[in-house]
């Protein structure tokens, strides 16, 4: 019984020791290898450093505008507002704009002299517009002999809402404008917008065209 146990232990010990010695041998061989066979190609792998450039990105453009708006049937009035744009690429931008004006009187109100169609608060005309713009005709404008300013003729297509005569109207706005970069970060805008919405204020429902011409100044940041 005892001898059997010893035999088993010795066998187990031999089994453990033998592969160990084989590993040790293999390791010795590996160490000896470079001396006998020098490596032909030495891998020259170097870690690549990549640095994100710290540049001031200026894709936002914000500013104000003043102008005149012709509110259909209600004459032309002074309009002012603000705009915020984000330039996605050199061609495409998104623009949110708001504006406010006060409608005048219809010819009927002027001639009749008495009947007022709208109260003062109802004459307030405010709108917002979310648009996609396309810089269709980029170029340069020359001012004098030695000054060139980058410019762009752009078109916008937008949707929004107009509050007029105490009611909100879904409005589609088409626009075209000229942007002139006076310095790297200040731009002048001259633009025309047509705000179109359905109105049933004077009886039948009809599509009204409300043309706006504006002059604005914006800053890129």
């Amino acid at each position, binding site marked *: 019984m005892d001898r059997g146990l010893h035999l088993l232990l010795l066998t187990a010990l031999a089994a453990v020791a033998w592969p160990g010695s084989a590993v040790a041998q293999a390791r010795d061989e590996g160490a000896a290898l470079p001396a006998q066979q020098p490596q032909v190609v030495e891998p020259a792998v170097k870690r690549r450093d990549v640095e994100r450039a710290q540049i001031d990105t200026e894709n936002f453009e914000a500013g104000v505008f003043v102008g005149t708006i012709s509110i259909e049937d209600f004459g032309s009035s002074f309009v002012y507002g603000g705009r915020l744009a984000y330039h*996605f690429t050199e061609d495409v931008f998104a623009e949110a704009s708001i504006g406010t004006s006060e409608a005048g009187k219809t010819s009927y109100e002027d001639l009749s002299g008495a009947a007022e169609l709208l109260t003062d608060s109802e004459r307030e005309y405010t709108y917002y517009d979310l648009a996609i713009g396309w810089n269709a005709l980029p170029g340069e404008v020359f001012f004098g002999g030695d000054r060139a300013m*980058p410019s762009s003729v752009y078109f916008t297509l937008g949707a929004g809402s107009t509050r007029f005569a105490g009611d909100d109207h879904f409005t589609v706005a088409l626009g075209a404008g000229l942007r002139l970069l006076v310095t790297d970060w200040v731009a002048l805008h001259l633009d025309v917008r047509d705000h179109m919405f359905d109105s049933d204020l004077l009886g039948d429902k009809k599509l009204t065209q409300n043309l706006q011409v504006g002059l604005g100044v914006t800053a890129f940041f």
Partner: protein
Amino acid sequence: MLRPLVALCAALCSMAIAPPALAAREATAVVVQDAFVDLRTGPGRGFPVAYSVERAATIQLLRQRTDWIKVRTHEGREGWVHRSQLERTLTSDGAEVRVAGPSPAARAEHRWEAELATGDFGGANVVGVRGAYALTPSLLVRADASHLLGDYSNGWLGAVGIAHVFVPEWRVSPFVGLGGGMLSISPKATLVQAEDRTDSIAYAGLGLRGFLTNRFLLQAEYRSYVVFTSRDENEEIDEWTVGFTYFF
């Protein structure tokens, strides 16, 4: 009363002073590796090349607008260089330079989306702004705000939800969405016995999204809304929208 006004003025003045302070900050300098780099007169591909700098010249990066970077040479000449040319430059330490901007990989890897959408909500017009955050390329968390403009009533709709994009790497991929939020409706003043109401809503949606370029998506979506009204029956409303999406 005066104190907030003074604080505001001070804030405005400090903002006005800020740009020169920014400009004074040390601009990143890079070493040109291409045979030459073109400096254009404006930030666009159509502007004429006014000047070129040779390999090994050092240029300073001043400002970036979309894909164009304004640079200054050591002689003081300034011009706009495209992002792709700057990606083949090295810093003075020999590190590669990365300039912010989308790459073709952004289609599947982007995190944020912003969308302008318009369409029809149960007969009313919709103007909406939507945002999404991609947890994975195929799972989006979405939030949207819509202005509803109808013939008889106007309203606002706000919702949050999730969407699953089936094959985000395809050029055109279908998606499904689920979400919930609030709907506030105010009937027009001309209607009698009308009152404003605000109800919670839930929606299930189905849509298609297609990449226009490496930066833009066009999305069309149908949503079926259930409005949990305080009346006996819930209301069901269909919404169809198309949207223009930019991803960051």
